[in-house]
């Protein structure tokens, strides 16, 4: 369902009227196109110390013009504030005020990035206060930004450096149009074991060369629920990034599934993921055709909304069966199979409903919160090995599912985020493709929201 209000307020006269009346003025977001420049205008690297200096050097190596201080009147594509050495709340003032100057100069679709250490990794109260303080400041900036600009943070765990391969991978993702609808989010990054990064990407991730075009070349990915909506888009984006994609959906959706497979040059597998042999059929197919399974995207999901007081067993059970029980069962089979790669990636679709709850969705929220619980527990088991598991929690995404929401409710839901609009399936897909790549090798057990900083469950 097209967001006609967004289209309207991006034409000259209605834009003026909306401004005069104080109505929401959502911007057309800057989305990724292959070959795009990471930053057309200079990028500010605020903050001091070796971490900030090293990061500035890397950005120069990416052919980005770097500024260490704001130049009056010069437009900026992004502002990266590096606070990895913040030891007390007092250390935030200067860099944050510099950032304040930069925010005024951001181009539409600009980016604000905070790079800092995790409060969980210190026992010093002042240091923890400083680190947690960055979190609050960046979230607030995200609320304040307009013109389709976003603010997000990279949280370094342990002794991870600002130029760690994964930290840089995350930075590239956030600076690019791929993160268009990711706003007010923080992604924790650890140093990935070298062996967990397969292929040539390990050496190039640090410089950003070579990984941009086909970061998933040679990988085999399975996407469930791929016949339509977000799943179909995930398949497209993974294929664009070089992956061989096996698209999976229930036999009844086979016609659309075949169309998706033919569009992305993949193979279609008609499997009901709630059946006991679903994982075996997927593994058999992948072994026969491709040998190794590198990426699993658990996207298939259903809603059967009812207030809990009116909920019946079939609604509750079917949602739990599809949205979480199937994932638990399939993961068990995947992890026990030699077909699943030692550097395998599992990305599971959660939902903001699973974080904040939602009226009429107790069953759905239970299943999606369940996904988050599953991801965190499995991530702990993966810790230190080559595999990762993460969750992506979409907010309001324009799909057939959200098109069924009554018109007025839908209009309100769209405006309830900092970006004042719904996201597109491609926004979710880009985030998943990033988490599936070598660039994300040090990201494990995270729940990344793709919600435009939705006010719900923030």
């Amino acid at each position: 369902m097209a967001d006609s209000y967004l289209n309207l307020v991006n034409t000259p006269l209605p834009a003026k009227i909306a401004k005069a009346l104080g109505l929401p003025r959502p911007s057309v977001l800057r989305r990724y196109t292959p070959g795009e420049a990471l930053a057309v205008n200079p990028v500010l690297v605020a903050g001091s110390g070796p971490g900030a200096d090293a990061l500035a050097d890397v950005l120069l190596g990416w052919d980005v013009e770097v500024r260490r201080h704001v130049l009056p009147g010069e437009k900026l594509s992004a502002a990266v504030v590096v606070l990895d050495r913040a030891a007390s709340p007092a250390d935030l003032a200067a860099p944050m005020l510099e950032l304040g100057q930069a925010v005024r100069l951001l181009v539409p679709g600009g980016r604000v990035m905070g790079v800092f250490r995790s409060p969980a990794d210190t026992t010093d109260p002042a240091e923890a206060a400083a680190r947690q303080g960055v979190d609050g400041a960046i979230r607030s900036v995200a609320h304040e930004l307009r013109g389709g600009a976003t603010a997000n943070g990279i949280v370094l765990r342990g002794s991870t450096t600002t130029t760690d391969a994964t930290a840089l991978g995350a930075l590239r993702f956030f600076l690019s149009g791929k993160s268009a609808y990711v706003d007010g989010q923080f992604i924790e990054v650890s140093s990935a074991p070298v062996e967990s990064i397969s292929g040539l990407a390990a050496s190039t991730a640090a410089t950003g060369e070579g990984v941009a075009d086909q970061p998933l070349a040679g990988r085999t990915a399975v996407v469930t629920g791929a016949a339509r909506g977000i799943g179909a888009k995930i398949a497209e984006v993974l294929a664009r990034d070089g992956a061989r994609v096996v698209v999976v959906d229930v036999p009844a959706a086979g016609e659309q599934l075949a169309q998706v497979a033919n569009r992305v040059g993949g193979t279609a597998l008609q499997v009901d993921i709630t059946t006991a042999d679903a994982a075996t059929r997927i593994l058999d197919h992948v072994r026969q055709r491709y040998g190794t399974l590198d990426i699993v995207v658990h996207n298939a999901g259903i809603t059967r909304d009812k207030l809990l007081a009116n909920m019946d067993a079939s609604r509750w059970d079917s949602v739990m069966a599809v949205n979480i029980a199937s994932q638990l069962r399939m993961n068990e089979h995947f992890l026990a199979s030699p077909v699943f790669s030692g550097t395998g990636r599992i990305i599971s679709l959660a939902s903001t409903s699973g974080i904040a709850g939602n009226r009429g969705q107790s069953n759905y929220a239970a299943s999606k919160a369940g996904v988050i619980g599953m991801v965190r527990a499995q991530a702990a088991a993966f810790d230190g090995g080559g595999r990762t598991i993460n969750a992506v929690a979409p907010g309001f995404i324009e799909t057939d599912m959200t098109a069924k929401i009554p018109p007025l409710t839908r209009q309100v839901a769209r405006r309830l985020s900092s970006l004042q609009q719904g996201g597109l399936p491609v926004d979710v897909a880009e985030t998943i493709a990033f988490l599936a790549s070598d660039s994300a090798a040090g990201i494990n057990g995270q729940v990344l929201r793709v919600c435009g900083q939705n006010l719900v469950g923030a």
Partner: protein
Amino acid sequence: MADQAGASNAAPSPRTAVVIGGNRIPFARAGGAYAYSSNKDMLIAALDGLVARFGLQGERIGEVAAGAVLKHSRDFNLTREAVLGSALSAATPAYDLQQACATGLETVVGLSNKIRLGQIESGIAGGVDSASDAPIAVSEGLRRVLLDLSRARTTQQKIKALGKLRPKDLAPNAPTTGEPRTGLSMGEHQALTTAAWKISREAQDELAYLSHRNLAAAYERGFFSDLMTPYRGLTRDANLRADTSLEKLATLKPVFGKSLDTTATMTAGNSTPLTDGAAVVLLGSEEYATANNLPMLANIVDAEASAVDFVHGEEGLLMAAVHGMPRLLARNGLTFDDFDFFEIHEAFAGTVLSALAAWEDEDYCKRVLGLDGALGSIDRSKLNVNGSSLAAGHPFAATGGRIVASLAKTLSEKGGRGLISICAAGGQGVIAILEARK
């Protein structure tokens, strides 16, 4: 290469042709879900589903062969047009074939032979038919007038040509299943055979019932999940009645054989309905399958086409396969006992039961087939184990592809050897042997 022990001639051993997989769209009853789909639409849908299943996008296949029995004259290049409309490489050649209801199986035979000879590495065989979107021709009288008119140069000649037109010429000719040489419909022909072999109404209804039951069970266990791609909202064969019973079948009124002296036994329940659908099969050499990491479900061993003289009443219209069978079996040193699965196309329940009766009849086998005794009997528990045309429906040229893919999958799961028999209009039949991979 293939072990051809026992072949004594000096010719080089041909390669092995394998069935890699198949795809069909669910079969619809005429006038149903595909009422407005053309043969080309349905064949493209079947091809695209196959492409999606095996990741053949943009691939150049050695050759695609398919056909339709009810075919518009504009579809003279139906299969090639379907290839161009599909996700396959436009560099994939294709040809049309037509052998009535044996069309689909004959395309499998033809392409597998090309593969065996090394002329192609891969092939897609199949067929399609629409009873809904059937061609309607102008009358012979109107056709002649129109042709004369197109050749007329002067106004006078044009008036003269039009002057030959008679009111009756304006009625269009709808297609029929009538045999050109006898004027009898296929059902009426089968009614003669059914009566001659004294096949009871109960036996026919039972075969129909088992067909529905077996097909429903196959769906139930997901057998078709990698053999079928839904089309136009249809996810199962529309003709399937999972809840049918012998009692229900017994209530149906006979539709064929009503003018015979004997009691009419053939009903809409134990005859196939007019159906729309398409089916294709991916074939390849062992080398092709191995090089592309494709599965090999079964080997195509041998096949034979046969025909009988039904015009002069010497044999039933749909009895040709009965005659070919002893030759095919003898050539391969096999008897019915060497087979684990039999796929005998259920044009009518009476067709299958007449064939079984004939092969069991010592006198007939000696007198008509020239054998020393009865050819043998077929274990009914091995017959059409996943249902056949009475339940699935029978879009004429699509039936061969449906049967070959289903049998090959069954063989890959259960092992053993399978026999296919398909009868066809014009007193013809095609039979084939498939074998599980060792």
